[in-house]
């Protein structure tokens, strides 16, 4: 695959535009951690996962669990861009009439494989899906994104033990390492680092990448697929708010929605970026 493709970059930029649109219209939500995870989601939903919007419940499909469920705007953006849900529904995010809940609801949204939002639980559910795949003799793979702050939850480490114990080599977890949680830098609030040594000690295959570099994301996923007998954690160094200049590396944008003006400014930046790639597809 061509990881430098304009199409993939546009896919990611469009996710980011939808993150702004969703949170701006809702006047709430979590743009910062949605933007940091956007490139990983773009790669998975554009390039990697064996999924079909026409058959979202296919028992043989690859699964994705957004363990950091508050990044739902980015997941909805990926699902809209991939054709699972209509793009015009993005603006209904968090409205009482909408099916697009603040945190992903598997019962309400085509393409959402697990309801998440309470941190620590999604990675365990992903373990369950991966082990069920082995027991049910299915070839699908399971992907999940966890947050760096989320790793302060003890359940993440229960899941880490479980995945290694059952040799879940069909499970690939991305750690969105954007350094910031609600109350500040993760090292100041409750330091969960070092991630690489911890996951190594838990008997995982550990890969560290730039989470905004598609070549590195692709190479890491290929390495994960080739690794047998152990689960893989891809520690993705990311920038919270990535792609919207005034949101980058600001923990204040964890759970604050952009105003209409800010949304327009951010969207203009992203449109400019898309134009620099040679225009929208």
């Amino acid at each position, binding site marked *: 695959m061509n990881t430098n493709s304009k199409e993939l970059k546009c896919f990611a930029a469009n996710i980011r535009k939808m993150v702004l649109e969703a949170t701006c219209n809702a006047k709430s939500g979590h743009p910062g951690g949605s933007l940091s995870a956007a490139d990983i989601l773009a790669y998975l939903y554009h390039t990697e996962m064996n999924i079909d919007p026409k058959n979202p419940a296919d*028992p043989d499909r690859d*699964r994705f*669990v957004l363990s950091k469920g508050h990044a739902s705007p980015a997941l909805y953006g990926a699902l809209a861009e991939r054709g699972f849900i209509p793009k015009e529904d993005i603006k209904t995010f968090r409205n009482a009439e909408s099916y697009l809940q603040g945190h992903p*609801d*598997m*019962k309400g949204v085509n393409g959402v*494989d*697990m*309801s998440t*939002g*309470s941190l*620590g*639980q*999604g990675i*365990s*559910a*992903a*373990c*369950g*899906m*991966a*082990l*069920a*795949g082995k*027991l*049910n003799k*299915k070839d699908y793979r399971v992907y999940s994104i966890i947050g760096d702050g989320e790793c302060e939850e*003890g*359940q993440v480490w*229960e*899941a880490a*033990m*479980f995945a290694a*114990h*059952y040799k879940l080599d069909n499970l690939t977890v991305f750690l969105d390492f954007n350094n910031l949680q609600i109350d500040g830098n993760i090292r100041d609030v409750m330091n969960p680092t070092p991630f690489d040594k911890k996951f190594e000690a838990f008997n995982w295959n550990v890969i560290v990448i730039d989470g905004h570099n598609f070549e590195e994301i692709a190479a890491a996923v290929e390495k994960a697929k080739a690794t047998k007998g152990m689960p893989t954690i891809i520690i993705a160094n990311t920038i919270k708010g990535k792609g919207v200049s005034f949101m980058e590396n600001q923990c204040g944008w964890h759970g604050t929605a952009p105003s209409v003006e800010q949304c327009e400014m951010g969207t203009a930046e992203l449109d400019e970026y898309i134009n620099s790639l040679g225009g929208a597809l």
Partner: protein
Amino acid sequence: MYKIGEKIATREAYGAALAEFGCDERIIVLDADLSKSTKTDCFKKVYPERFINAGIAEGNMLSVAAGMSACGNIVFASSFAMFASGRAFEQIRNSVGYPCLNVKIGATHAGISVGEDGATHQCLEDMGIMRTIPNMTIINPADATEARLAVKAAIDHQGPVYLRFGRLAVPTIFGDDYKFEIGKGVELEDGTDLTIIATGLMVPYAQEARNALLELGISARVVNIHTIKPIDKEIIIKAAKETGAIVTAEEHNIIGGLGSAVAEVLAENAPVPMARIGTQDVFGRSGTPQKLFEIYGLDTKTIVEKSKEVLAKK
């Protein structure tokens, strides 16, 4: 299957039923390092490939169960009631209840009859905790026969089920002709003066109390409520209207469980004098189950006394 009068713990019947009905290849059984006590080892012996030990990590186990059921499996997740409903409450609420997944929680060692292990292991609040979760069905079997049928019904039921089993060997009171249906209470004895509504191992005490009351010239109806949620409103309202007084009996805190559920039905539909037998909002302690039943008033004597009290309020 089980002989009337035979003493057998409902957890034993749970393990045996898992093995008996486990041929369905969608079934996976998880346990948190207690398979010898929860009796899921009975399933493990027959279907080792579908038995998964999750280790001492109940929260993870319940979310793993959710993920498995999202892939089409019927998943039993077992631990002691305290840790299944207590430690893993939020995983059950968010990962299982909210998406209404097909996870069956096999919670053993419920109630004060755990005995010598003491208060930390005597779960007296699980029915109350589970009752607050939308989509949850709660079954508290009275004997081995009912426990076996509850497991079968849980397999056939689409959605989460909390199954509450005991450690203590209790008398089998139902025969092979016993009919079990989720959500349907069972009138075991008719009566006209009051109704004793019992659940779990309190059911045989309720039957004994009925006989003792008869000697005093009091006619008590006995109703077995095995499904705490959804509760059988009809049988409760009928009992209230026809007998005019209600006594509930459960091996659980009087807050949150059967007594609360019955009181809610009565208050909204047919208010009559009632009394709740159960632990009176206190923690348990170490001791033999029989001694603890006596201390905490979970016995025939207390049911008789409370029945007389409630009759005086009619």
